[in-house]
């Protein structure tokens, strides 16, 4: 029997106005992890949606175990043994773990559900996968990582031959990612083929056997494990060469004045004695595990959460920030990690979003908004930040992730914010656009802005930050100059859970 599990050839799919996939091909062997990479919009998700029966292909063939199959609905895909774990969490929060795993396949007796059999089946499955969770627990009580484990268990409960994972680690910490990788290793041994979609280049070498690259809906090429070389992959993805830039040093900014000084900040839930300084023209990175309290520091500073006993100085003057509007009045802009929920009005046009925080500047005493002046300003930002949009009246939803992020940045720049707090600035943004965001951050600090950047990606932190604050368990465990920092050192500080301090 051939070792080939899945072969896909000549797949094309178009939507009104867009050719999403053009003659795409790839192969997957038994017990293999194939990474599918490409920028956002390269067609990875469309391709996977065709495999899982959500979209119907226009052209092309899919062979499973050498037999051509016709996948016309999610049910058919499941029956064929193709399971997908979607990028967005797809669980019913108010149901239990067991109810989620077997949704649509509940054991029944006539009209009635057999809840006990359901829980037993779920328990057996979780035990088999080595996932230690109570099947009767409500999903809403689980952490994001554990919910991800439930998703995986659900996908595997179909006795999947082919398991598709769409960015499974985007919400996981490093430790949790390791657990996932162990699980994938186990799957490989049982002959399951895994298609793995990720933006994280460092993961590819870790777990994949082959990498297939897509660009603009077309097949670009496949690299074997031995050939895996991250700059090559990135070049194939973006179709151009990306240069690695030098890391910044703390020495550059050592003599700049302090624009933001935080002393002894606490919150009831988590933060203890947070103190640090941010200098003009500096990018101050915040590193740490998920749940270490990095986002909470930002939220406490801008007054989104209640803090206790802390003192905040801006440009040397003590200030009281009780709510986010106070923070904005003092020139602090916060860019949430969840742009779509907290940063943008997705259904509105670019112009509205750019001007949202500074609308008052374009409003006269009678409350009339002077749109011409505002639109001029928006156009300037679209040009200076190189926001790729057909016009400022395009709906924000239709922009790519990277360009949406730039719209949020433009919003705060229009409001004259000098201190910008970026929470995971490149989450969900593809490699090419990441570079643009990095360049933009560097341009901003060169122009005298100061930036706090919270990031879970250590290469990103090291690449951009002049200094790095490391947090663990609600405390700052270390503040490092970039020239003294490396990944191992940061991880060391990030895993110090006790009271030990070494500053």
């Amino acid at each position, binding site marked *: 029997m051939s070792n080939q599990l899945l072969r896909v050839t000549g797949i094309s799919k178009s939507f009104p106005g867009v050719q999403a996939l053009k003659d795409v091909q790839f192969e997957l062997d038994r017990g293999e992890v194939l990474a599918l990479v490409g920028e956002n919009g390269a067609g990875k998700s469309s391709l996977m949606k065709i495999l899982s029966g*959500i979209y119907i292909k226009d052209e092309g063939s899919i062979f499973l175990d050498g037999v051509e199959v016709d996948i016309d609905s*999610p*049910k058919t895909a*499941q029956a064929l043994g193709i399971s997908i774990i*979607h990028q*967005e*969490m*797809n*669980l*019913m*929060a*108010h*149901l239990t773990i067991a*109810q989620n795993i077997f*949704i*649509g*396949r*509940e054991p*029944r007796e006539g*009209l*009635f*559900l057999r809840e006990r059999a359901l829980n037993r089946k779920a328990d057996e499955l979780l035990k088999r996968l*080595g*996932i*230690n*969770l*109570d099947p009767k*627990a*409500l999903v*809403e*009580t*689980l*952490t*994001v*990582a*554990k*919910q991800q*484990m439930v998703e995986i268990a*659900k996908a595997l409960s179909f006795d999947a031959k082919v398991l598709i994972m769409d960015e499974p680690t*985007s*919400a996981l*910490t490093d*430790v*949790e990612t390791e*657990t996932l990788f*162990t699980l994938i290793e186990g799957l490989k041994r049982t002959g399951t083929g895994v298609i793995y979609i990720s933006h994280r280049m460092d993961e590819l070498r870790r777990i994949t056997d082959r990498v297939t690259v897509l660009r603009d809906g077309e097949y670009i090429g496949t690299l074997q494990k031995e050939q895996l070389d991250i700059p090559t992959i990135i070049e194939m993805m973006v179709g151009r060469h990306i240069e690695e830039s030098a890391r910044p040093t703390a020495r550059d900014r050592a003599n700049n004045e302090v624009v933001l000084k935080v002393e002894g900040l606490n919150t009831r*839930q*988590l933060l203890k004695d947070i103190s640090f300084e941010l200098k003009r023209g500096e990018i101050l990175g915040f590193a740490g595990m*998920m*749940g270490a309290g990095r*986002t*909470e520091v930002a939220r406490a500073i801008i007054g989104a959460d209640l803090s206790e006993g802390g003192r905040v100085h801006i440009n040397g003057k003590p200030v009281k920030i009780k709510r986010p509007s106070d923070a904005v009045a003092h020139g602090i802009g916060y860019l949430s*990690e*969840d742009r779509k*929920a907290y940063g943008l009005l997705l259904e509105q046009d670019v112009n509205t979003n750019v001007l949202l925080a500074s609308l008052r500047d374009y409003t006269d005493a009678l409350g009339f908004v002077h749109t011409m002046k505002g639109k001029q300003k928006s156009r300037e930002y679209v040009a200076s930040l190189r926001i790729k949009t057909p016009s400022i009246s395009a709906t924000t939803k239709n922009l790519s992730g990277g360009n949406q992020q730039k719209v949020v940045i433009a919003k705060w720049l229009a409001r004259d914010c000098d201190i910008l707090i970026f929470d995971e600035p490149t989450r969900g943004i593809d490699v090419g656009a990441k570079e643009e965001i990095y360049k933009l951050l560097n341009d901003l600090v060169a122009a005298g802005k100061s930036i706090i950047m919270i990031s879970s990606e250590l290469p990103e932190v090291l690449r951009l930050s002049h200094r790095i604050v490391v947090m663990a*368990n609600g405390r700052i465990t270390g503040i490092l100059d970039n020239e003294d920092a490396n990944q191992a050192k940061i991880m060391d500080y990030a895993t110090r859970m006790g009271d030990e301090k070494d500053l």
Partner: protein
Amino acid sequence: MNATPVTDQTRVGGGTPEPRRSATSFLRAQIQQSLAFATLVVLLVFFSFASSNFFTWSNISGILLSTAVIGILALGTTFVIITGGIDLSIGTGMTLAAVMTGIFLVNLELPLMVGVIGGILTGGLMGFINGFNIAILRLPPFIATLAMMLIAQGLALVISGVRPIYFSSVVGFKDIALGFVIPGLPNAVLILFVLAILAYVLLSKTLLGRYTFAIGSNEEATRLSGVDTRKWKIVIYTVAGLFTGVAGVVIGARLDSAQPQLGTGYELQAIAAVIIGGTSLLGGRGSILGTLIGALIMSVLINGLRIMSIQTEWQNVVIGVVILIAVFTDALRQRRAAS
């Protein structure tokens, strides 16, 4: 789900099954229900002291009788609201079902059982149309059922010729609400309790109930799991419509007439009862016991105010405030759950 920041220390694999958090969320649900129950007790005690006429058997039995109609409507609506939808057509839908029962029994002189089943199916048909409009034509539930509310209201008036239809000629019809299968317990109340048990079983023991919660939690995820959510939504709205139909028959029997002008306002009382009972307007959460308690709170309140001789105008104000408080508690609960 991705959006919520995880604030606790996560240890995967080493796995604690988080007994503490699921225990607190369980407790919270209990508190919500006992809160509604405590409110009911407080109201009962308060009105008993406020008026000597309140805690009399005839009044209590009157309260239960009026709870029957709101309660039956609320039971059906509970399913709809748990899916994250809403049904505004239950009040006038009930009226239309009562009028149709009148047409079947009085004008067409059909046998009692046939007329009653006809009335119930009228409700079911309206529910089915609601479900079709929402699931297949993808109209927002609010708009689809608002339209149905007006359609039912208009049809009830047209079909009846804007005159009440009296059931005095129909032998045994009145007994559906006012007779006694169990001595001392009016049949309308018995019907409410039987339907409540039925609704409880449907919601917690059958596929219908499971998918009601699933759709309310995350409709897209449910659909992608291979569940035909469109079909189930139609089923759920049809079930709600059938409950509306029963309410129509019961109110007709209780008044011994079909009053075509009646009905508006009932939908809001029923929805309020559901919300007071702890069912979330955002979907995914709710219980039949809660709805029953909520319905009792509504009718005790209305009855108590009436018995204290408070003007109808002021009664409306009080009910409005109660609805505000109930929705606010719901919002508060959501916020706490989110943080």
